[in-house]
């Protein structure tokens, strides 16, 4: 069972007094996969940060699995929320195995279990355990680092997974590979997924429901199938921008 997520009329203010997210409400059922798309600065990342407590609403509330998100106990709850950020931000002084084992160690798993879970996930992400476990992040390529970041977020099977443009810095081939791997992982476990991207094709590949956010507000919220047929002008512009002209 994935987590249930409710954002109830949340507003997040920016440092200049303008709201980054304005009066947003969103309900996500357990096991749903939702892509949030929008232009740069539309408030996508802030919406995602609301869900792991990195952003705090000035008004409104965020409720995960029936419990309002916030102190006390926020750190403990974050261990059950996987977050994959645009920059993998691996811990440079820790090996791949230590990076991946971060959350299990916080959860107090025994070493052997951490090892087994990490090994299984790294293999699935095409990072053979024997070759990668003892290496340091600086010796990895960008794609490898991002995969370690994915493993680090997912190793403890969090029921909620938040992804903030996790593949945007990667070349298109690695990106495609990782999207496929990611979809397999998503389908394999029961997880609620929120995936932020500005790439419509990516959104349609990884999610079954698309939320379009513009200027801090949700302007469309549709199943992926309806999204591509929508008459909404901004959706049109997104789809147009993603279309590749066919060779004549």
């Amino acid at each position, binding site marked *: 069972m994935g987590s249930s997520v409710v954002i109830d009329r949340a507003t997040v203010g920016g440092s200049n007094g303008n709201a980054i997210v304005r009066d947003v409400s969103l309900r996500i059922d357990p096991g749903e996969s939702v892509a949030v798309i929008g232009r740069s600065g539309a408030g996508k990342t802030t919406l995602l940060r609301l869900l792991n407590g*990195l952003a705090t609403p000035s008004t409104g509330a965020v409720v995960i699995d029936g419990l309002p998100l916030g102190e006390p106990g926020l*750190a*403990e*709850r974050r261990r059950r*929320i996987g977050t994959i950020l645009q920059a993998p*931000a691996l*811990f440079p002084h820790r090996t791949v195995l230590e990076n991946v084992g971060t*959350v299990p160690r*916080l959860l107090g798993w025994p070493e052997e279990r951490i090892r087994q879970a990490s090994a299984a996930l790294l293999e699935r992400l095409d990072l053979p355990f024997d070759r990668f476990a003892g290496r*340091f992040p600086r010796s990895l390529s960008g794609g490898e680092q991002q995969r370690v970041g994915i493993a680090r977020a997912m190793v403890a099977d969090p029921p909620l997974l938040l992804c903030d443009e996790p593949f945007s810095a990667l070349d298109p081939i690695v990106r495609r590979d990782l999207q496929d791997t990611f979809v397999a992982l998503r389908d394999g476990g029961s997880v609620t997924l929120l995936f932020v991207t500005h790439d419509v094709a990516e959104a349609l590949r990884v999610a079954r429901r698309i939320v379009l956010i513009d200027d801090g507000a949700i302007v469309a919220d549709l199943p992926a199938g309806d999204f591509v047929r929508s008459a909404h002008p901004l959706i049109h512009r997104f789809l147009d921008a993603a279309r590749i002209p066919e060779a004549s």
Partner: protein
Amino acid sequence: MTDLTAEIVHATAQHLLIVGVAMLVATSAGIPIGVACVWNPRSGRIVLRLIDIIQTIPSLALFGFLIPLPLIGGIGIRTAIVALILYSLLPLVRNTVTGIAGVDPLIREAATALGMTERQRLMRIDLPLALPSIFGGIRIATVIAIGVATIAAAVGGGGLGTLIFRGVAMVDSTRILAGALPAAALAVAADLLFGALERLAARRLGV
């Protein structure tokens, strides 16, 4: 000459003792103070300013100020150690602050997002990543302390300064060198040792 050799050995040992004790105390106080300055930036700035001011007091004057103080003052080794601790704080605190402030904010955010508490992040991420800078602080503090400790002889603190002061009084350059050369050698050795640790820690982080 053998008398002088014995004197040099004795004075060097005493010098090392004064500097060693002072550095031990200063490090175990300086790093937590640095962490506290990061956590409370407003009071942190005041603390850093105070430590700055201590650093501007000429060392001989600082020894002089300490002598009349009860408990920590007086004539002897204790005053010397207290003065060295005060002098060593600035590089230690400042480098701890700089080191932690220099940690990539994305890495700190990742640690928070994964569910580390502030304390866990401090111990597992911030301090290890600040280690090269902290070793740099220990290196600078130790080198300064070895030099300043020669002045401790003026307040009866002993150490290599005893030889130098005696040499000056007797206009005996051999004696002055007998104190000055080992002090310089100690400073160079400390510089090399902690410099190596600093590089080792930095290399481990891949920077």
